[in-house]
Every structure is written in C-alpha cells, then in structure tokens.
C-alpha cells in the first residue's frame, strides 16, 4: 500500500483515562499512520459513523471502565450491519483475561492489556490489515 494506514482511535464509554489512547495515537503517527482521534465518550454509533466516513483501515478502541463486553461487540456488530467487512478492529485497556476469548470471538481481532509495547500494536496492525 503506498498510502498511509488510517486508524480511528476512539474511547467508547464514559471513562476519561485517555493516557493509553493518546500514547498509542502518537506512536502510530510516529510509525507513519494517519490517526483520526475522536476523543472521550464516544458511542458505538458515533465510532462506526466516523470509521465509515473516514474510510479507516483500523478501528482501535480503549476502555478502562469495565464496559468493554458491552461496547466492543456493539461496534463490531454495527459495522457488520453497515456491510463493512474490511476494517481491522482492535481493543485495549483494563480487560480481564477471562473476557478476552469472548471479545475475540465477537470480532475484536486483538486485545492489548496494560504493559503492551506500542511496537507490538504497530506490528499487529501492519500484519493484519484487511485491504
């Protein structure tokens, strides 16, 4: 691909802990990607609308409040309903190990927990793009 990878970095849910999201956004930019940063308190509907209009390759979401089981799959399903099947969806935050299989099954392709290196996220994105 000779164009930059486009990534939507979003924080669904109500928690305001965006240190991780911002560090990731910056690391992705420094890796040559275009990051569309939408900030706090995004509803799944808003995330999907932004993902479509921005025609992103990746949707990266972060939650620390514990609402991930509810909100992450919502985004996946809404994208499906809109017929979007070429976007890589990843998530991060304080996510209990127990929840990870469910999230992976529901269509989040990777979950990154605290302590993940930004390099790993960048590598994962580069190796798992869908178009």
């Amino acid at each position, binding site marked *: 691909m000779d164009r930059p990878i486009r990534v939507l970095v979003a924080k669904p849910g109500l*928690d305001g802990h965006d*240190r991780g999201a911002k560090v990731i956004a910056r*690391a992705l930019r420094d890796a040559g990607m275009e990051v569309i940063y939408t900030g706090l*308190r995004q509803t799944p509907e808003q995330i999907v609308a932004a993902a479509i209009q921005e025609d992103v390759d990746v949707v990266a979401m972060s939650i620390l*409040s*514990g*609402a991930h089981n509810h909100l992450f799959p919502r985004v996946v399903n809404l994208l499906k309903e809109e017929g979007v099947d070429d976007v890589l969806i990843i998530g991060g935050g304080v996510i209990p*190990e127990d929840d990870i299989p469910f999230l992976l099954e529901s269509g989040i392709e990777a979950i990154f927990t605290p302590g993940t290196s930004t390099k790993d996220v960048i590598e994962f994105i580069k190796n798992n793009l869908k178009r």
Partner: protein
Amino acid sequence: MFDGKKINEIKTSIDRWEKETVEKTISRFPERKEKFTTGSNAEVKRLYTPVDIKDFDYEEDLGYPGEYPYTRGVQPTMYRGRLWTMRQYAGFATAEESNERYKYLLEQGQTGLSVAFDLPTQIGYDSDHPLAEGEVGKVGVAIDSLKDMEVLFDGIPLDKVSTSMTINAPASVLLAMYIAVAEKQGVSKDKLRGTIQNDILKEYIARGTYIFPPEPSMRLITNIFEYCSREVPKWNTISISGYHVREAGSTAVQEVAFTLANGIAYVEAAINAGLDVDDFAPRLSFFFNAHNDLLEEVAKYRAARRLWARIMKERFKAKNPKSMQLKFHTQTAGSTLTAQQPDNNIIRVTIQTLAAVLGGTQSLHTNSRDEALALPTEESVRIALRTQQIVAYESGVTETVDPLAGSYYVESLTNKIEEEAIRYIEKIDELGGAPKAIEKGYIQREIQNAAYRYQMEIESGERIVVGVNKFQIEETEKKEILKVDRTVELNQKEKLARLKKERNNEEVERVLKLLKEKAETDENLMPYILDAVKAYATLGEICDVLREVFSEYEQSVIL
C-alpha cells in the same frame, strides 16, 4: 547551616575523591548506566553532600512539624499521635450492597467512609441514559436520586461518620443529597463531616469526568465554598488532586506544579466571589499520588507542603495557620501496576506506601495487586490494607517525625522540586492562570510529552519494569477477578422508572424551573439544588437543566 569555608573544603575533597577513588573504580567497573535519573527523569548524581544544599537554612526551609512552612509535617507529633487514616476507596454496584458494606466496616471500628460512584453518576447521567449503557454500577455505586442516597446511608448515623465522596462535576448535587439524608435523620448540617473531591480543573486535564465548561464549573465550586463556610462548616469542600495528573503520565514536579496551580485558581475564584481567604482555605485539602521512586516521592510531598504554605502566606496573605497547611490524602499509583505477574504489585504498593508515610500523608488508599486486570477481589483488597498496617505497626518509620529530613539527597531533591514547580507556576501565571493554561492545552501537552517519553523509555529498555520488559515469564495461572453483572443496570433502571411515576412531578417541574432561572443569575445555587433533590428530581434532570444554561465542555485534542 554550612559556612562558606567549610563548603569550599568539601568541594575540594569531593574533587579529590572523584579523581583518586572513583576514577580508579570506574576504569575497572564502569557504572551500570551513563546517566541515572529519578522516576520522573530528573538527573541523579552519584553522591550528594552538603555542597548540594549549601544555602540550606534549617529554620527557614524546614522549621518544625506543625509550624510554618510545614515542610516536616502539618501536625506536631505526626504518627506518634495518631496514624494516618487508612481509607480504602471502594465502589459497589448498588446502594443496597454499598450500605451493607459500610455497616460492616463501621462495626469493625472504621469511622471514615469513602464512596466511589459509577461513571454515569460522575457525569450527571441517570442510569437510563443511552450513554450509561454498560456502565451502570461498574466502577462504583449508581445514584440517580435522593432515593438511592437514602438507601446508601440507611441506618448510618451521619453525625458519627466522616464520608469522602469522589465526585466532581455534579459535586453540589451529591452534597445536597447527603445533606437531605442527614436532615431526614434529624442531623443538622453543621454536624456533617466529610470531603467531596469537587476538583473540576484536573478533570479537564486528566480524569475526564467533566460536564460543564470551566467558567460555570468554577462558579458551582465557589457556590459550594460559600455555602459550606456558612452552613456546613466541618465539610472539606474540595480535594485538589494531583493523583490523576500523575496517572496521566506527569512527572513528580508537574504533579506538584499543576495541582498547586489549580489550587491557586480555586483560591482566586473564591476570593473574587467575595470570600475571605481564611474562611474557606482551612477546608481545602489535597490528594497526591505515591509512585515508585521512593525518595523522589518523599521530597515531592515535602516540597508541596512548603510551597503551598508559602503561596498561602505570601501570595494570598492568609493569617490562619490552618489556611497554610497542606493536608493530603494519598493513593498508590495505579499506573505502576502491571497485568503481568500481578503479585509483584504487592511489593510496588509497599514501596509506595512507605513513600506516602515517610512523606507525612494524612490518609492513604493502597491499590490492590489485580487492579491492572479489573476491580479488585476481596482478598486483594485485604492484602492492600495489610500492607498499610505492616508499614504502620512493623516498619518503625512511624516512630519519629519526618525521618528523612537532613538527607543531603532528599533535601536537595525537595529544593529542586519546589524550584521547578515554581517555574511552572510562573509560566501558568503568565498564561493567565490554570483555567487559561488548560484551555490553551499547555498543561495537557506537558503531561502528554512526559507520558510519551516514559512509554518510549520502557520500550527501549532504558527504563526497566519488572515482569514487563525484563524478567518476564510465561503466565498460565488463572487470575481470580471480580465482575459486576448486568442485572444491576436493569434494576437501577426499574427503580428509576418507578420513582418517576410515584413522585410529585408537578413539584419536580417547579423546582427544576426555579433552578434554571437561578442558574441564569449570579445567585448561589446550593439552596435550589437542595430543594430539587428533596423533591426527588434526579441527578440527570438537575444536570440537564444546568447543561441547558451552562452548555457542555468540549474536549480539545492535544497530542
């Protein structure tokens, strides 16, 4: 403390030592790193000597515990008199569960309660708001109306306990509910003791649970200052928080600087609203982080105390000594907890506890080992509390006041943190004060740069985090964790629907309309908010009225 001649002698002998002794060793055994730094990236020298604190003036810089400038502590006897309050912040999904828990804790002899609210409550949404979906009861108790608050404190005599509430944007509403519950118990307002966090500026900077723009938010805060100084005199009206600033990735210096800059903004706002500094300043309290770099943290607390005392005395001309005392709560740093090998977190928390105690904290919350994974289990919470108790009863650091004073390193660090914090505060003053500096994104940018640098240091291996970028293991062991189930949300919605049917809706409409009218004037809103909660208007309804008048804060991206 040292005369010039002596200092020069020491300088000469340091040079000699470097040449004769150190160089010889280094040529054979080089040091581990070229540059040594604190947890906040400040350079650390090989050795600290009297030269590093040559202008040190004991009486002026340290003085005595319980006396200006309070560097050594705000109480004369510190932990020899009374240990710090071990106050564990805890959130339980429903008011019923929390109430049970509080009663249990009180039976065990605890006198302080600490209430964690769920995020919809913190942002002024009722449990049936679309944005609340999936969040109800998750990180704390869900409060929609006075009904929930009545259940939360049912059977708990509010004249006997002190209650700390972590609530900011809608602090006035929750405080009003607390007052209303007390009234129903027959407890008058002047007997109420407790704290509301009420620190909106750090929400814009770091924590994110804001509702309104800065201007009306500051008004709500000064309304509370004014109302409480008159009606609820024992209430701590604000807890100015550096904790979240640090969690967002700031350095120790930034934590002190930005917290005190926010403090200055609140004091100025209150003075501008016509209050006398000594009327409200004694009720200001602070909240700091305890990070891993033990000695830097100790220096941080000492520097913060001294700097605040000087600010209050010199800048604001406070007369009451209590106005100059920086009293603070501490929480161990959540961001230092690792998901990898979570038991290691117990040791981290121990070091952080020592830092807070050696730094003279008034109360402490210790994090649980599994908080990088989810809300803590009961067992983890117990270990966290035991950590405090071991430090309190077994470590011996409590037996004398400010035991690290006089250490060349600690005093030099204390000076340095104070000096650098002053520079930041001057810069913020130049920008027009903390609210303006936040609006311009200056403070956020400074923090984010520090956060990014920290992360890159970990990734390059420059900074070691045990179990994360060194000493990793393959982890298969199952980690037991706590979860909140979804029925909480449904129950809460049901209760809310019932309330809206059963209450006197005409009265609700009347009080909300009145509140709206008053919000458009300059009047103190506390009495009208109190009337509204008493009529069982919900938190969401009250905040919606205020949203209409004040509008909502819009985050600006600063990266």
